[in-house]
C-alpha cells in the first residue's frame, strides 16, 4: 500500500510540475463564469461573457507547464488534441486559436489592461490588478 501511495505521488509529480492554474479576468469583470464557459471561450465556441461583452481568450506558450496544466484540467484535451482541433478550424476559415502571452508576467499585464480578456497564470502568481475567478 505504501509503495502504491509513493507510486501515485511520483506519478502526480511527473505529470504536473506546477501546483495549479488560476483563471483571471479584469477586476471590473463581474460576470458569472463557470468551468464550462471557460472551456467554451478557450475553444472558440463562446465569444462573449454573460453580460454580452466580448470575451477574448489569451493562452500561454505552447508546451509550457502552465499551458499544459490548463489544457488538461480545464479544456480537458492534450496539447496535440487541441492543436488538431484548431488546425481543423484555422485551415477551413472557421476560427482562430487564442493569442499567446509569453509569460505569467505578460499575461498579468495584458489582462489588467483589457476588460475583454480572460487568461490564466500559475496558482499564486496573480497580482492585485487582476481578478482570479477559478482555481484548478
Amino acid at each position, binding site marked *: 500500500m505504501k509503495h502504491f501511495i509513493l507510486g501515485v505521488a511520483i506519478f502526480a509529480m511527473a505529470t504536473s510540475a506546477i501546483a495549479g492554474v488560476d483563471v483571471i479576468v479584469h477586476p471590473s469583470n463581474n460576470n458569472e463564469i463557470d468551468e464550462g464557459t471557460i472551456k467554451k471561450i478557450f475553444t472558440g465556441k463562446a*465569444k462573449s461573457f454573460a453580460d454580452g461583452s466580448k470575451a477574448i481568450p489569451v493562452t500561454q506558450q505552447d508546451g509550457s507547464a502552465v499551458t499544459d496544466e490548463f489544457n488538461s484540467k480545464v479544456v480537458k484535451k*492534450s496539447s496535440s488534441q487541441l492543436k488538431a482541433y484548431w488546425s481543423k478550424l484555422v*485551415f477551413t476559415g*472557421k476560427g482562430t486559436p487564442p493569442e499567446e*502571452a509569453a509569460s505569467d508576467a505578460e499575461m498579468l499585464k495584458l489582462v489588467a489592461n483589457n476588460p475583454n480578456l480572460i487568461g490564466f497564470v500559475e496558482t499564486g502568481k496573480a497580482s492585485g490588478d487582476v481578478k482570479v475567478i477559478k482555481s484548478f
Partner: protein
Amino acid sequence: MKKTLSLIAVATMLSSPCSAEINLSGFASINAGKVLSGTGVPQFGIDEPTFLADYPIVSTYNDEITFEPETLFGLQISANVGQGLSIIGQVVARGADDFDPTFEWAYLSYEINENWTVQAGKKRLPLFYYSDFYDVGYAYVWMRAPADNYTWQIFNYSGANVLYTGEWGDWSISTNIYAGREDDKENKLLSEFFFSEPTREIWKDIVGGVFQASYDWFEIRLTHMQYTNQRYQSGEPVLWDGKDERDGKFYGIAMNADWGNIFVLTELNRLDLGGNLDTQMITLGYRFNDVTPYISYAAFEEDSVGGEEHNTTSLGIRWDFHPSAAFKIQYDDVQDKSFDLAVAGDSKSLTVGVDIVF
C-alpha cells in the same frame, strides 16, 4: 498557428490606415507506401497491384515504395484588414501533381458579428465531415480520410457561404449555407483514372447546407447538397437518358463520440444521381497518452446489380511524438467487389508518414 499577443499589440499601436495583420500558417504530410499484395484489374488489362488511396487526387500506390502519391505541402496566408474583414489564401503543392503549387482556397471572410460570417471565393466543397480539412492530416487520426467515402471527383467550388456559430443552451451549434459552381476543365479522377480521355466535369447550381451540433462528448453533423452535373468527354457532351445534364442530391450524417480515451467516428452518406450511391464509415480508437491505435471500416456501394462496390478495413497507429507533428502507420485491406465497374482491384497496403502543422 502560433501568434504572440505582444507582437500584435505593437503592430496595432503602430497601425497606419493601410496596415494589415498578416498570419502565415501551414501544414505538410510526408508519406510513403507500397502495395504488399493485390490483384490489379485483369479485366481492364491492369495486372499491376494498385491501391487507390485517394480518389480525387488520384494517389495510387504500386508494389514499389513511393513518396509522391500523398506527400503534400500547404501554406496559408491570411490578412486581417480590420473591422472583421480578412482575406485568406491557401496554396497546396502535391506530390501527386509533381508538386505544382495551386491555390486551393482563395476567399474573403467578413465577420458581421460574433455569430454570423459571410465568405466568398474559392473554397473546399464541404460535402463530407472531413472534406474541408482533407489535406490537413494532422487534424485527424488516420493516414487519410477513408478513401471509399471521399470518392467524389469535385472537391472545390467557387461561390459564397454564410456561417453561423452560436450556443443553444448547452449545445454548441454551427451551420454553413453555401451556393456556387465548379467547372473543372480537365478533371483528374475522370480523365486519368476512370475514362482515360480528357473529361470536363461541371457541377453547377450547387446549393448546400451543413448543420453541426456538439455537446460535451457528442457531436452530430447533418448535410444536404444539390447540384446539376454536365460532362464533356473529349469535347463531346455526355448524355444521360438522352439529356446533357442530370441532377444530383447528396445527404450525409456523421456522429462522433469522444470520451477522452476512447472515441468512435461514424459517417453515412448518399448521393442520388438517379440511382443511389451509398457510403459508410466507422472508426474506433483509443488514446494511450501520445499513442492512438485505431481500427476503421469504410464502404462504397452502388444500388444496382453489378454496380461499383468496394470496402476497406484499416488498422493503424497515430503517435504524437512532437508538439506539432504526428507519425502514422496504416495497413489497408481493400476489397473491390464489382467486375464491370472495378476501381483498382483488391489490395493490401502499408503506408507510413508524418503530418505537421505550423
